[in-house]
């Protein structure tokens, strides 16, 4: 079956936010398919609905119109199949690093000695050996975002939704983490959707980049990244000869999306 390989699908998805001030159309008639193991990035001007799309994929809110499918089935709420990483780490200051990373397991009732050992192994793998019993305030921003990554991976989801997880970090740490995330997700064969403002990041990490325009949010361009850049680590990809070309294309599309205003 063709649907088997489609991990995520948006079919004619629209979302309207309603509050006292009124109703506003955040995204309109989106169609997008993400295949198993694929890494897709969403770029676009602020307010074009990137977080809205991730929230619907994560089951935090239902679409106003259309369908959101996860592995062929409609998304009705948060699922164990899906992990989510936020821009800030939001580690609980009263929990140790280990307990922070294990909170998903605790909620799902899977927190036991074996799982905690697995969490410790994960922390070591992510470059945080021996910090399980420390508290978040003892860690730097980059280390804390690694814990947030461990927290997401601990429940072993198939699909990762990443909402600008690197944007609050220094460039140096950001590049390190990009490589770490890329390597980890590739090795584990995870499917990922990354939201970012950083075009170079999108080009270096993804298989496919979706460019969105705002008012209302919609897809204006889909760019498939060439194989050689795709296979390289994000750090190496940046140095490849074809990289600048991809970046320039994205840049041009984004400018068009930002300048274009309403429907062309």
């Amino acid at each position, binding site marked *: 079956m063709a649907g088997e390989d489609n991990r995520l699908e948006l079919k004619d998805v629209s979302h309207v936010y309603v509050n006292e001030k009124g109703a506003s159309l955040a995204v309109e008639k989106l169609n997008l398919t993400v295949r198993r193991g694929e890494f897709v990035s969403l770029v676009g001007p602020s307010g074009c609905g990137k977080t809205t799309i991730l929230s619907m994929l994560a089951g*935090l809110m239902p679409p106003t119109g259309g369908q959101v499918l996860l592995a062929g089935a409609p998304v009705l709420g948060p699922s*164990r199949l899906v992990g989510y990483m936020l821009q800030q780490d*939001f580690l609980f200051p009263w929990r140790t690093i280990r307990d922070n990373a294990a909170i998903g397991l605790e909620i799902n009732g899977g927190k036991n000695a074996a799982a905690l050992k697995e969490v410790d192994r994960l922390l070591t793998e992510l470059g945080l050996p021996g910090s399980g019993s420390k508290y978040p305030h003892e860690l730097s921003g980059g280390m804390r975002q690694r814990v947030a990554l461990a927290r997401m991976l601990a429940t072993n989801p198939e699909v990762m939704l990443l909402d600008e997880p690197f944007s609050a970090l220094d460039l140096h740490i950001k590049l390190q983490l990009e490589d770490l995330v890329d390597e980890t997700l590739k090795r584990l064969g995870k499917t990922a959707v990354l939201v970012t403002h950083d075009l170079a990041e999108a080009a270096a990490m993804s298989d496919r980049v979706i460019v969105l325009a705002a008012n209302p949010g919609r897809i204006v361009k889909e760019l498939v990244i060439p194989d050689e850049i795709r296979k390289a680590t994000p750090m190496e990809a940046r140095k490849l000869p074809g990289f600048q070309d991809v970046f320039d294309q994205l840049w041009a599309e984004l400018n068009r999306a930002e300048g274009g205003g309403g429907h062309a």
Partner: protein
Amino acid sequence: MPKNEHSYKKALLSGLQEDRESGMKELHAQYKQKARRITAAVGTTQFTILLLFLALWEAAGRQKWIDPLLFSYPTKIVNQLWNSMADGSIWPHIGMTVSETIIGFILGTLVGTGLAALLWWFPFLSRVLDPYLVVLNSMPKVALGPLFIVSLGPGFNSIVAVTLSITVIITTINIYNRFIEIEAGYIKVVRLFGASRAQLFRLVILPASFPVIISALKVNVGLAWIGVIVGEFLVAKLGLGYLMIYGFQVFNFTLVLSTLIVIAVVATIMYQLVAILERKLTSGWRER
């Protein structure tokens, strides 16, 4: 002194690492010495003020500059205290008041936290109750005292009820406000793992509010003392508040003042104990 100054200035100017270090050490030592001197001076002044006050009071009482029947004087009060402790008559009063206060502030904090949880769980309820809470909070709650005496009978129950009326509303409001101002990102983290509302409360809302709950406990110690003493003024047959009122009635102001001192001492001890408890409990809880 000038010689000293000269030496560390020279040390800093010499440019040698060792000289610089010893020069800086010397500055630090001078700084610490100065701080110690000021602390000692403050202590001495505090003690002197107290001593002068007591001496003046004693003299004024004995020389009848003030009416010793109304204002008593320190040695008389100390005597009274000593006797009441020696013959054991003070202890039941202390015991009664302390247990009423402890029950009052613990129960007040627990009930307040419970109500706050209820308001958080049912947002509709919190909208409905909001104006009532505002009115109840601005009311002088000890005025409810007679009502409690009529309905609960004179004694322990109505005293605890007076205490609760003072502590519960403000505790509820403070803790509820903390509950609803917790950053949305923390809530999103657990919601994304499919947490139920009960799990959200247990894993995020309650622990994130822990410092506020503990500080409410501390505030409630003070409020509970007010409630208990007023309650005892109104109805009791036992307790420090009762002892004071009794002193007034029989015109024994030495008894009144000595009881006041006991209240001050016991309340301070209790407050300090709760402050230590607060530090113990919140030491594992760390701010960002």
